[in-house]
């Protein structure tokens, strides 16, 4: 009696397991909160797939996790800076993205981009710029990084800078016309001098976008490097905030969706990638995250409030400069500059 009951239980358990596999799963790996929940729900309902997700706090963590064997993820998001490393280290599946029917929807500039030249591994997810925000009640209108890096004396103590050598030096390099990831000591000395001269005016070094936005809104600082989407959210609370597109160039990033090597639910992952290529779906992410989509045609589905927001589109007067992951020699120089800045 007992054993037959056990057999029935075992039978139903294995039956349940088969059904679950048939429905399918999809494990996402992404920055925390960096996807629209409505979008996930729509996908789950349309394809009867159970979506689970896990998050990382930095691209270093993403890379480390993937190097350890992918940890069972089927979908991940990485920037243009990290993607070449992920592809060259063999950590991404070749999903033939550029051959997918929806790939034609990718905005032309981001089709087969520099960081995935064959377009086989990834599709653009969201993109945006890292320029700077000013409080126009305090800071005169500007179209140049000069306002931030050689600030007016009156703004001393009203400036926050990112606490990140790679981002600050990348932006300062744009201002000075120095190439990204320069390994030339003379060029980097100029960057070092610029940051040293700027430091007395800087109130704090922090990269916490939420805190920066909060301080800008409270009027405790009047200028700080900031992401386009964060500035937009701040401007909704304080209309005098403005996002500056410098004439020297905008530091830009593109996050890309890809499938980690060894994904268990490869077919579902491809389904999800194809799903994201549809403009209507891509727009759901933009409406939630407030960053422009990499899919053309998505604009038609944007909420009215963000459709014409200045943060959404870089003007032609501010050329996009994509941030790269620098080599060892450049990182060493940058660390030297940063340590001496903070000593």
């Amino acid at each position, binding site marked *: 009696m007992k054993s037959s009951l056990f057999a029935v239980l075992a039978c139903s358990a294995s039956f349940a397991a088969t059904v679950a596999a048939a429905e399918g799963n999809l494990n996402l790996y992404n920055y925390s909160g960096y996807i629209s929940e409505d979008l996930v729900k729509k996908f789950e309902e349309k394809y009867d797939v159970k979506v689970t997700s896990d998050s990382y706090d930095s691209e270093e963590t993403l890379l480390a996790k993937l190097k350890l064997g992918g940890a069972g993820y089927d979908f991940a998001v990485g920037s243009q800076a990290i993607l070449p*490393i992920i592809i060259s280290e063999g950590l991404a599946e070749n999903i033939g993205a550029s051959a997918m029917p929806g790939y034609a929807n990718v905005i032309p500039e981001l089709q087969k981009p520099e960081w995935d030249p064959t377009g086989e591994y990834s599709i653009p997810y969201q993109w945006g710029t890292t320029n700077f925000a000013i409080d126009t009640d305090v800071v005169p209108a500007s179209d140049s990084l000069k306002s931030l890096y050689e600030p007016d004396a009156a703004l001393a103590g009203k400036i926050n800078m990112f606490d990140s050598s790679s981002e600050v030096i990348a932006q300062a390099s744009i201002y000075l016309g120095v190439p990204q990831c320069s390994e030339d*000591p003379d060029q980097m000395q100029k960057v070092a001098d610029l940051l040293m001269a700027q430091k007395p005016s800087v109130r*704090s*070094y922090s990269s916490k976008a939420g805190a920066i936005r909060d*301080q800008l809104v409270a*009027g*405790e600082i009047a200028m700080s490097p900031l992401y386009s989407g964060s500035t937009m959210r701040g401007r909704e609370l304080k209309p005098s905030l403005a996002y500056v597109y410098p004439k020297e160039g905008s530091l830009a990033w593109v996050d890309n969706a890809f499938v980690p090597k060894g994904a268990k639910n490869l077919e579902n992952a491809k389904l999800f990638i194809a799903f994201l290529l549809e403009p209507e779906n891509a727009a759901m992410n933009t409406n939630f995250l407030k960053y422009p989509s990499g899919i053309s045609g998505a604009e038609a589905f944007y909420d009215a409030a963000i459709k014409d927001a200045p943060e959404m589109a870089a003007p032609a007067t501010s050329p996009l400069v994509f941030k790269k992951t620098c080599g060892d020699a450049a990182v060493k120089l940058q660390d030297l500059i940063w*340590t001496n800045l903070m*000593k």
Partner: protein
Amino acid sequence: MSTPANQGKLAERAGMLPAALFVAAFLLVPLGLVVAYSFMPANSFGGVDPGFSTDAYRNVLYEQRLDGSFRLSAAYLLIVWRSIYVAGLTTLIVLAISLPVAIYIARQVPRRRTFLLLMVTIPFWANILIRTFAWILLLRDTGVINGFLTALGVISSPLPLLNTTGAVLVGLVYTFAPFMVLPIYGRMERLQQSQLEAAHDLYANRWQVFRHIVWPAALPGVVAGSLLTFIPCLGSLIAPELLGGGKQMMLGNLIYRQFSEARNWPFGAAIAVLLLVIVALIGLVQVYLARRKFAGKVA
């Protein structure tokens, strides 16, 4: 073959096994890893490559200049010095606050003592990040203190309280004060009331009572509390970053940076080893002083 005496010894050794395993698992292995990492070449994307290298230690003293040549570097020594200075100053302030508090608590009736000790330890119940953010809310331009002073008309524009060395000190003193109060209280509690009465009977004034009775009794607690404050302060990370505005690195920030953006784990490990050596030296000095004091008493 096995005599009872042998068996006893064996049992004794076996009984010590858990302690030995504990030390090995939680002290020697992690420490060994840190030391081993400090002698390996750095991997380009974080972590280490197999091999042997002393670059990390050379980096502490010499910096490769932007043009590739080496020169004696002051940056890291300056950061080490700042850490020692801030930790030392914190310890002194904490001592000045905690000594009277501990003496006061020890002189209350037992029920009140329990209550007051509870009050001292309550801040520990909240996470350190939460407590540090609470200080940000107090100190910021639009914070409680500036808001209060402005409302009273004492100031017209907010005082720059946050993002200063003073703010870092406030955060550290606040965090570590209980570590000083508790050991001193432990000593003060054992001080006999009769000793104090005898001193007063012999016409000692308040200062003399403190100098000859209270201070010697409190001293072991002061030493313990100072170590408990000074050593963790040396490696503090949160206060300099959040309250100090990240403008000046301390050792903790320098180490953290090596494991993140600078992608130089061996160097981070080498600084951690250096910090450990500093702490060990301070511990040795304390042991030496304690022994000398003990020897003096016997003679």
